[in-house]
Every structure is written in structure tokens, then in C-alpha cells.
């Protein structure tokens, strides 16, 4: 019967899981017509307590008659269907011979399992579960051992099983299964399949029956009865003949203690922290390790490499590992005598190595700069025109100073604040004390780098010269120190290759140094040159020729003027060589000096026909024209393309000219200063100076236009330093700063980007001053200067 039902019906089974009431029995009955097996089995599986068919035993029997093959119902005294499930589902093809009691239940189990298989596609497990459930539950409910139930069941089963034809049922099972599988074909895939979710059996794996029973329960009475029977039995036992006591003896085996000893399990705590950088380090070192290894190493070895590289690469653990290794070594040295010989020799060179290493020097360098920055921070901030910050933790000793300043400033409140110079710091160290500062030059590319040349002016007490390159970041020690064999009298940095420094010396040598390298020797020296200067070189300059002259290369050339009366241009051709741009001939005061000849011989006997050149300056825009000043006091305007004669001569000074400078703003105005205590302002086209400045009766050693204001220039004479502002006054300097007693000021340099002035003196100090409260007036500076000149000329005429 089940076969046709199987055919007709797809594996859809309606299950009412919550059906525990007796209602289901009716529904089950209704379904009996169709698929009795299924309904019953469902009910049996789902509803535990209501084996509802008990009431309908008749029907059951009927159905059992109707379906002799499939319904094996085992009913206990209460009418419950306690059909046992088979413990396992045998292979239908194989098992035909087994006709044991248990397998009688297999058929039912077979159907059950079949039922299960159609619904759940499970085989033995379900039947297993079913069997267990059934049996256990039965035992639980009845409180009799399961075995007894099984026995009773099996007894009951035997009867129905005898009616059965096991093989057929088994084969039916087999067939059914196949048929079921055939049914699922393509046309059926599109059909709507109803899936019903069924509550599966509760698998009871362990059931420990309670040893006590509630008083209210149904079994209470039977339990009580049994208990009372038992107690009676125990009472009767004592004097009863039926019971005889017998003693037994069990042998206790002799016990033996056994000792086992094992080494103590040493535990070591290992901890690690995986940092971001740690993983990055291992990744990097693993990458390196893979490169080293051959290609066919497996991952295990790579992992080993990683672990091996862990130690040396991780700096954090390095110290610990070193410490631990040293302790190991020291401990082992106590035991073995070989070790101590190895240990001390390894640690000795380490401190020395550290101190000599590059990195240590670099760190020292940086550290020194930082320390100095701490010390000089307010001064440097003032230099760079940054606001100086008060240190909040500094001592309150600064307060009285502030008070005094306030008092001073209150006095000046009426008028505008007077321009003044504030001394910031000075570049000096013990190397330079006692030396005369002869020249200073800023680096063209790095405005913080200053080159200072030290050398005596006078012929007597000549000593080896010194060139120091100072950095603003370290005012207490120069960055580079070059010693030269004779006093340095001139310096200039090249503009095209910013690390080239040209140095002119008192013995006429010209050398170039590369300040980037740490070598103490010049790159090139002119001492081998045939045409070298024979007298002190008073000025060197790198000049950029835009226009090529007579096939010579464009670019920078080094020009020098020396006391042997030559202005030479130097270039590299198998060594340093020079050509003369001009020979400074001696001239007379009268205008007809060109006719050299009898007049000269009559007047004076000359030592040489050359006039010592002391200074020169190229025109700021036209690099062909330059001015040269001589010891006679003449200024010659010359041209590079014409080296026989001067273009012009300006005569006004009565003493050697120490400096000539073109104005950086007005292209035909220049200044000259000399030892005749005067500074003269010239215009190119006039042969007499436009303005002359004299403030003291001292020789003026240096004069320089301010790079920022057109009407401002600075001058330094032996005793003091002056800042002139022509817009303010043409008679007196605006700011005067006297030198310390005993010290002569020898050179002056304006800082290019800030309002600072550097003054070098004969004691080897280069002091940095800041111009305070200095404004050169409104309006275009150039216009002002020209106005002044114009007005002066007008007044002269």
C-alpha cells in the first residue's frame, strides 16, 4: 500500500509537531486510508505521549491487516504504541537471513526509516534515534528497565512478524527507495514543492532515571508498594530459611609503591609585543633573508631566517640580548677557564670605536649646534628679525633691566626713537684672537655662511694667515679653518660654484679652496704660475662676464689686483694662469700725464713705473667697465677690452685708496674712501667728487653701500664705525659706534637680507650689530639720492 502512496505522493508530509492531544488520533485515523503507515509513524515519532492509536486498536488491527507488510505495532498494556525501532538499519540487499527478534522490528523500522529517508534522507541515524527514543521513553514512562520492555515488545513482535514476509518488506523498502529517486526528474524541478519543516526527534543520549518519585505522581503508589514489599523482604530475611548468609573473601593484591621521578618542568615566561615597526622590521629583514637563500628553500627555513634575524635587527632587544649574553659568558667563565680570555678583548675596542665613528661626530656636531642655539637664541632671532620670546622660566633678574630701559625710553618719548646699533654677538674663538681681520665675504648661495680672512696689513709682523668659514649657527667655532702660509688679504666666494673660495695673500699668492670638503689644502694655488703677483694681493673678485671677450669663455673669471700694479684675470689652463687686464701705470696730477716721458724723469726718480693697485670694482651692470684705485690716490676707469690705457681718471684723494664701490641702486654713482680721512661720492661723468664726507681724522679703511637703502652706506675707520644716511644728513654720520679701546676696526660688511652690519677688528673679532629704529625715509631711495646729488651740484654751480 505504501508503494502506490509513494508514487502518488511526493515527499511531502504533513506533520503537526505540537500535536500531543488526542485530537491527532482522529486526524491520524483520517489519514489512515491514504497512508496509514505515514500517519502513524508520524504520530509515533512526534507525539511522544499520545500514542493515540491505543483507542483505535481495532482500527489498527484492521490497518495492520490491510497493510500487513508495513505496520508492525507493538502495544503495551496501556495501549501505547511502543513499537521499537531497530538499533540499526541493515543493508536491504544483504540481510535476508536474519530473522531474529530484533530484526522483526527492523521491518517496522524499515518503514520508519524509509519514511525518514524520504523526508530527511537519513538512514541509520534516524532509525537509531527512533529506536532509542522509543525504548528509552518507554522505560522512562513505565519505570521498568528497558530490557523488560524490549522483551515484552519482542514477544509481541514475534507474532506479527511471523505473519510477515521479511524479504518482501525489505525488498519493498529497496524498491521504494529507488522509485522515490526516479520520481525526481526534470519536469518535476519546476513544480512547486512544499516543504514541511518537521520537528525532529529529541535524541536522548543519557537518561538517568530518578531514584525518587514524587508523591503526587502516578507511579507513587506502585513505588510505595514495592518499597514496602522490599522492607518486608529485608525483615523476613534475617531468620528465614530461604535466605542464608554466606561470606566471601576477595583477595586484596599486595600494593606496591612505585616512584617516578622526572625533571622539573622549567617554565619561562615569554612575552612579546608586536609593534608596527617590529613587523615592518621583520618584513624587511625577511625580504633580505629571502634574497640570500636559494630559491628552493621551503617556508620553514625562511621562518627560521626571520627568527634568526630578529635578534640583530631589533634594536630594542639588542641591549637585552647583549646583557643576557654577557651574563651567560660571565657565569660560564667561572666554570671554564677558557672563556675569560675571550671576553675582555672584545669589549675593549668598543668605546674607542664608538668615539671614532662617523655617526658620533655627526651627533656631536648637531648637539653643539643645538646647545649654541639655546644660548644664542634671542640674538639669532633678532638677527633674523623674528620676535624674541621671553623664556617663562628665566630668573626674574631681568626685571630691573626692563625698568631701566623704560626709564630711558621715557626720556626719549618726545621724539622718534633714535637709530642705534645693538651688538648681537661676535664671531671669535681662540684661534683668531690677536689676528687682524682683513676681509670678509658672504657665501653667494648660503647667506648664513661667512668667510673671514685674517692677515696683517703692514709689512712687518707677518704671520701665517688664516681663513675661517663661520656659520651663523655656531658663532663660537668656525666650520672650516684653513691656514695659509702668509697673511690673507682678500677673499671672495664664487657665485657659479658656491663652494669655491678665492683667497689672496700677502705674498702675492692666490689660492682657491673648496669649502665643502674637509681638506685643509687649497684646490689650486698660484705659486707655480710664472706671472703670479709679486706683491700683496689686495683684492680678489669673481666676475661674471656676460659678453665673451676675444674668444675667451663666458662665465666667471677671477680678477685680482695687487700692489705690483697689475690687474690680472686668472683662469685654469694646465694650472692656474693669468693674463693682465691692466697695468696700472703711475700718473701725475696734471692732466697731460699721458705723455710719459721727459717730464717724469725730470721730476722724480721712481722705483717702479707701476702704481700699486689697492682696490677695484666692476660696474654692476656693465661687466666691461671697472674702476681701480691706486696707492697714489687716483681712480682709474678702465675697460676689459682695452688694456693699454685708462678710460678716465678721477683724482681727488690725497692718499692711498682703500675702497671703491659702485652704488647698487644708482648705476653711475660710486664711493671711494682713502687714508686721507675722507670718503668721496662720485658720479661717473664728473671728474670732481659730488660729495665728500669727513668725520674724524682717521684713515677710513672700508666703506660699503647698504644693500637695502640707496642713501645709506657704512664706513669704518680706525677708531669707530659709522653709518651714514644721506637722506638724513650729508654732514654727519647717523650712527656712530666707537671701537673698544686698543682695537682698530678694519673691515665692514653689510648682511644682505637683514639689517645687520658686521665689523671686523684687529683683535680677530667679527662683531655683528643690528640696526635698530633705522628707516631711511619714505620715497624711492634712488630718487632721493639723485635728488641729493642734483641739489648739491646745483648748489655748487
Amino acid at each position, binding site marked *: 500500500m505504501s508503494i502506490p502512496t509513494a508514487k502518488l505522493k511526493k515527499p511531502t508530509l504533513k506533520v503537526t509537531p505540537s500535536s500531543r492531544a488526542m485530537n491527532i488520533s482522529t486526524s491520524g485515523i483520517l489519514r489512515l486510508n491514504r497512508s496509514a503507515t505515514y500517519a502513524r509513524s508520524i504520530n509515533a515519532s512526534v507525539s511522544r505521549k499520545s500514542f493515540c492509536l491505543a483507542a483505535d486498536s481495532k482500527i489498527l488491527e484492521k490497518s495492520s491487516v490491510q497493510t500487513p507488510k508495513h505496520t508492525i505495532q507493538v502495544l503495551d498494556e496501556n495501549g501505547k504504541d511502543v513499537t521499537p525501532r531497530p538499533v540499526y538499519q541493515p543493508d536491504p540487499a544483504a540481510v535476508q537471513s536474519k530473522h531474529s527478534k530484533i530484526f522483526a522490528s527492523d521491518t517496522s523500522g524499515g518503514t520508519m526509516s524509509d519514511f525518514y529517508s524520504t523526508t530527511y534522507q537519513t538512514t541509520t541515524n534516524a532509525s537509531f534515534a527512533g529506536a532509542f527514543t522509543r525504548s528509552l521513553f518507554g522505560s522512562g514512562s513505565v519505570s521498568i528497565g528497558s530490557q523488560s520492555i524490549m522483551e515484552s515488545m519482542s514477544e509481541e513482535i514475534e507474532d506479527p512478524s511471523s505473519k510477515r514476509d521479511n524479504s518482501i518488506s525489505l525488498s519493498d523498502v529497496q524498491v521504494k527507495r529507488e522509485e522515490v529517486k526516479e520520481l525526481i526528474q526534470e519536469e518535476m524541478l519546476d513544480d512547486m514543492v512544499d516543504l514541511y519543516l518537521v520537528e525532529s526527534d529529541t535524541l536522548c543520549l543519557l537518561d538517568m532515571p530518578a531514584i525518587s518519585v514524587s508523591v503526587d505522581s502516578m507511579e507513587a503508589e506502585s513505588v510505595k508498594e514495592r518499597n514496602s514489599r522490599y522492607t518486608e523482604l529485608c525483615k523476613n530475611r534475617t531468620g528465614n530459611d530461604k535466605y542464608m548468609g554466606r561470606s566471601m573473601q576477595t583477595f586484596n593484591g599486595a600494593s606496591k609503591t612505585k616512584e617516578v621521578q622526572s625533571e622539573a618542568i622549567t617554565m619561562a615566561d615569554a612575552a612579546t609585543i608586536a609593534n608596527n615597526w617590529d613587523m615592518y622590521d621583520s618584513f624587511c629583514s625577511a625580504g633580505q633573508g629571502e634574497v640570500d637563500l636559494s630559491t628552493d628553500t621551503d617556508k620553514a627555513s625562511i621562518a627560521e631566517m626571520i627568527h634568526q634575524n630578529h635578534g640583530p635587527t631589533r634594536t630594542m632587544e639588542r*641591549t637585552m640580548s*647583549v646583557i643576557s649574553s654577557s651574563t651567560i659568558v660571565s657565569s660560564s667563565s667561572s666554570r671554564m677557564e677558557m672563556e675569560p680570555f675571550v671576553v675582555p678583548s672584545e669589549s675593549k675596542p668598543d668605546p674607542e670605536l*664608538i668615539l671614532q665613528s662617523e655617526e658620533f661626530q655627526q*651627533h*656631536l*656636531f648637531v648637539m653643539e649646534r*643645538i646647545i649654541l642655539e639655546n*644660548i644664542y637664541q634671542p640674538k639669532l632671532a633678532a638677527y633674523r628679525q623674528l620676535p624674541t620670546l621671553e623664556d617663562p622660566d628665566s630668573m626674574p633678574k631681568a626685571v630691573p633691566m626692563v625698568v631701566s630701559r623704560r626709564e630711558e625710553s621715557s626720556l626719549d618719548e618726545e621724539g622718534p626713537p633714535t637709530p642705534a646699533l645693538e651688538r648681537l654677538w661676535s664671531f671669535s674663538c681662540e684661534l683668531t684672537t690677536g689676528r687682524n681681520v682683513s676681509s670678509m665675504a658672504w657665501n653667494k648661495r648660503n647667506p648664513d655662511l661667512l668667510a673671514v680672512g685674517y692677515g696683517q696689513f703692514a709689512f712687518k709682523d707677518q704671520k701665517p694667515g688664516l681663513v675661517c668659514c663661520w656659520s651663523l649657527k655656531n658663532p663660537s667655532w668656525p666650520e672650516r679653518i684653513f691656514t695659509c702660509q702668509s697673511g690673507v688679504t682678500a677673499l671672495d666666494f664664487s657665485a657659479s660654484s658656491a663652494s669655491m673660495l678665492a683667497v689672496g695673500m700677502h705674498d702675492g699668492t692666490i689660492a682657491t679652496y673648496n669649502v665643502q670638503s674637509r681638506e685643509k689644502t687649497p684646490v689650486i694655488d698660484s705659486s707655480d704660475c710664472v706671472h703670479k703677483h709679486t706683491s700683496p694681493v689686495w683684492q680678489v673678485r669673481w666676475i661674471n662676464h656676460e659678453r665673451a671677450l676675444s674668444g675667451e669663455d663666458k662665465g666667471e673669471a677671477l680678477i685680482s689686483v695687487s700692489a705690483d700694479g697689475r690687474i690680472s684675470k686668472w683662469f685654469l689652463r694646465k694650472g692656474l694662469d693669468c693674463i693682465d687686464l691692466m697695468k696700472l701705470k703711475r700718473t701725475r696730477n696734471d692732466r697731460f700725464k699721458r705723455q710719459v716721458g721727459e717730464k717724469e724723469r725730470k721730476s722724480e726718480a721712481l722705483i717702479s713705473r707701476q702704481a700699486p693697485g689697492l682696490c677695484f670694482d666692476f660696474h654692476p651692470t656693465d661687466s666691461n667697465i671697472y674702476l681701480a684705485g691706486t696707492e697714489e690716490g687716483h681712480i682709474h676707469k678702465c675697460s676689459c677690452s682695452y688694456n693699454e690705457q685708462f678710460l678716465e681718471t678721477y683724482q681727488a684723494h690725497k692718499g692711498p685708496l682703500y675702497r671703491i664701490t659702485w652704488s647698487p641702486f644708482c648705476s653711475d654713482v660710486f664711493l671711494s674712501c682713502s687714508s686721507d680721512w675722507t670718503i668721496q661720492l662720485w658720479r661717473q661723468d664728473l671728474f670732481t667728487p659730488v660729495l665728500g664726507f669727513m668725520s674724524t681724522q682717521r684713515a677710513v679703511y672700508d666703506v660699503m653701500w647698504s644693500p637695502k637703502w640707496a642713501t645709506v652706506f657704512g664706513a669704518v675707520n680706525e677708531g669707530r664705525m659709522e653709518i651714514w644716511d644721506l637722506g638724513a644728513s650729508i654732514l654727519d654720520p647717523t650712527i656712530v659706534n666707537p671701537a673698544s679701546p686698543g682695537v682698530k676696526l678694519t673691515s665692514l660688511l653689510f648682511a644682505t637680507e637683514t639689517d645687520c652690519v658686521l665689523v671686523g677688528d684687529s683683535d680677530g673679532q667679527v662683531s655683528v650689530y643690528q640696526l635698530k629704529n633705522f628707516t631711511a625715509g619714505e620715497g624711492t631711495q634712488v630718487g632721493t639720492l639723485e635728488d641729493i646729488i642734483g641739489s648739491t651740484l646745483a648748489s655748487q654751480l
Partner: protein
Amino acid sequence: MAEVEETLKRIQTHKGVIGTIVVNAEGIPIRTTLDNSTTVQYAGLLHQLTMKARSTVRDIDPQNDLTFLRIRSKKHEIMVAPDKEYMLIVIQNPSE
């Protein structure tokens, strides 16, 4: 070598510098101008701080590394130049 000695001497003579310490990777002082207990204390404490600082810098970006460490306190400024093999420590009183 002489230059290094000179520089060390110069650093020590700068204004406000209280002490200079050079310790190796194990914390043993190589060069110091302070007494031993102070040196060891500074070295130990600053070593830990430097490690922490380096760890912080590298955690943020593993390709970065610590080059210099400055601690400004009310009284002093401690400047540490760390390295794999040594540590250079200078203590300065900047407002002196």
C-alpha cells in the same frame, strides 16, 4: 679622534652646559663629566624614554626613525642623541 675630543671639550665649555655623558648600548658610560651615580641614573632613565620615543615614532611610520630628543624642564634642558651603539646626553641650563 683629536677632533672628537676637541668637540667634546668645547661642548662642555659652552655656556650653561652642566654635563656631558656618552654611554654605550649596554648603559655603561664611556665618557662623562658627572659623577657615576648621576650618570648611571641619567643613562638608565633616558634609555627607557628614548626607546619609548623611538617606538612611538616608528609605530606611526615604520620607515621613520628617531634622530634627536630634547626635554625642556623648568631648570634644565636635556638633549639626547640616540644611536644603535651609543647615546649622547647633554644637560644644559639655557637661561643661565
